[in-house]
């Protein structure tokens, strides 16, 4: 038989999800908080929909900066406690978009690599739900091929000078600061010679130009830098180590439950619309979706646990993202195929389905495309 000679291989390393403390109590606290904001819930693709008022309320309730130290306004909770909170917010379709990137990746990066000045300046506001950030990775010439970034940082007597352009920057127009990956070493190639900088969005020389997405919404942007001057403290981490740091940032960006829950409110609406005794065909589809959802959640929990244990879950996170994106992307089309929803129908189910049909193509693009993610998995399999 195959593999007789070798010990059994495993396609996925399983880590037990075991947050400290009373998880049921924590969940109940989040649900009680959500109940107070019920009118704001049920948003499709909710982690790109910003509501500063909601973010501030979350901050006041202690649900932001959960894993940050108290000195900077954080709550010193366990990363898996934070996971419990964010999966509850996502499942309810809470409008978490304003602070999402700051809480998920920028704050941990600043904490780990940022200067003292940067920590003092930004972290307390992030914990309060008042400071929002955006991701400055993609450029017109650098999409999947991120190592092609050309935006430059030049060291001068007054400080760093940034020139160039970012694109597809989600929420740039609502953000206070961008964490950008730029080329700090002139003449460097590919992933060498890159550094990360915090760029205040109100800095002179920085312009934001909206890009309207296909749903007609202003969500992402072009951001131009015309000799933008930055102080020394704006550099994050070590000069020239930007690639390694951005990789750590991507691990946070790609590994969370938002990679399979973007359409969850539609699943909820489907089940509610079907009622307790659905016709056989609908019942069977709900069963299939439930099995997929449950399995994805188990995979996501294990990935979060691996990350929290200080190990690199690159392959597992890529697997969850790939499978999760396909699930959340297919969901509106599966509902469409199943339920009679003519374009004139205007109840919750039809509205959510239509919104997600339009939003879904982005699910397997943002945060690294399906093909790039599968390439990472293939590398994990030893194929490249």
């Amino acid at each position, binding site marked *: *038989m*195959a*593999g*007789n000679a*070798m*010990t*059994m*291989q495993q*396609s*996925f390393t*399983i880590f037990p*999800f075991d947050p400290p403390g009373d998880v*049921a109590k924590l*969940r109940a606290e989040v649900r009680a908080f959500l109940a107070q904001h019920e009118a704001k819930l049920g948003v499709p693709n909710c982690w790109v929909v910003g509501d500063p008022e909601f973010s501030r309320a979350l901050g006041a309730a202690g649900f932001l900066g959960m894993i940050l130290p108290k000195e900077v306004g954080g709550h010193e909770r366990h990363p898996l406690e934070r996971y419990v909170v964010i999966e*509850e917010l996502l*499942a309810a379709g809470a409008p978490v978009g304003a602070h999402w990137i700051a809480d998920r990746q920028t704050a941990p990066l600043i904490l780990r690599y940022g200067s003292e000045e940067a920590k003092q300046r930004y972290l307390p506001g992030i914990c309060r739900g008042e400071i929002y950030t955006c991701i400055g990775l993609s450029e017109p010439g650098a999409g999947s091929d991120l190592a092609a970034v050309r935006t430059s940082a030049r060291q001068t007597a007054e400080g760093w000078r940034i020139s160039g352009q970012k694109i597809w920057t989600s929420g740039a127009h609502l953000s206070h600061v961008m964490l950008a990956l730029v080329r700090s070493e002139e003449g460097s190639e590919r992933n060498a010679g890159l550094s990360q900088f915090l760029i205040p969005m109100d800095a002179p020389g920085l312009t934001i130009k909206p890009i309207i997405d296909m749903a007609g919404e202003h969500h992402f942007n072009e951001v131009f830098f015309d000799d933008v001057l930055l102080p020394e403290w704006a550099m994050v981490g070590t000069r020239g180590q930007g690639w390694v740091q951005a990789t750590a940032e991507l691990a946070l960006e790609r590994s969370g439950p938002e990679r399979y829950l973007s359409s*969850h409110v539609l*699943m*909820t*609406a*489907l*089940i*509610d619309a*079907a*009622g*307790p*005794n*659905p016709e*056989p065909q*609908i*019942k*069977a*589809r*709900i*069963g*299939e979706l*439930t*099995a*997929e*959802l*449950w*399995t*994805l*959640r*188990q*995979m996501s929990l*294990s990935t979060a646990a691996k990350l929290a244990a200080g190990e690199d879950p690159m392959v*597992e996170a890529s*697997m969850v993202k*790939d*499978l999760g994106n396909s699930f959340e992307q297919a969901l509106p089309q599966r509902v469409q195929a199943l339920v009679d929803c003519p374009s004139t129908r205007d109840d919750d189910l039809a509205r959510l389905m239509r919104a997600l049909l339009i939003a879904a193509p982005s699910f397997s693009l943002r945060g690294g495309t399906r*093909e790039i993610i*599968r*390439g990472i*998995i*293939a590398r*994990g*399999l030893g*194929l*490249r």
Partner: protein
Amino acid sequence: MSEQRALLCDTAEAVFAEAVVEGMAPIEAAGFDQLLVPEAEGGFGGDWGDLFAVLRIAGAKVPHLAVGERIVGGEISRPIGAFILVAQAAGAMDAALAMSIDYVNTRQQFGKALGKFQAVQQVLAIFAVEAAAVNVAGAAAAAALDKAGGDAEQALFEIAAAKLRTNKAIGQATSIAHQVHGAIGFTREYDLHKLTGPLLDWRSDHGNDAYWADLLGAMAADLGGVGLWHEVTRRG
């Protein structure tokens, strides 16, 4: 993995490797029929996670032998039967994946190993994700059985979800395994069918997709939209 489970897996690897040669698995001689029997009753005192680990190996090494039924013993209920097949499928799928990777790294066409072609890499990534889903679902169903003290009715939600997800994965995984192997994988002589044949059988046995989808769908509908999320998170 606990030390006890690691030891158990070592034994299982050795026993099932031998069974391949002998054509039968010495379940009783190896003491595997005592796996779930409590220590107080003179058994091994293992849990369902241990059983899952052993059955994964059985599924990879001796998929044609009904190992699970003999380890659990007695009359096998449909949910327990389904769990056994999920566990065996987890191992068989990982083995078929390893075999496929091995093959595309060896077989050359157009002057290079097949595994260097991006199209091949991408389908094997899909295969790996499906295998991962089955392994995670199976392990989680085992954990649910442990929590329920082995009462399959109490772990029915997880077993239903795991078997249904496994059934779906079997379709995709076996297709990809055969596709990347080309004609050689379609021969009697080559070992791939020893994994894919049983995998395809297991999709029908102890409940096909329709059976488990109906059962799980009824549970979910009964819970309602938000109720389903609450139940999923409550169960762990």
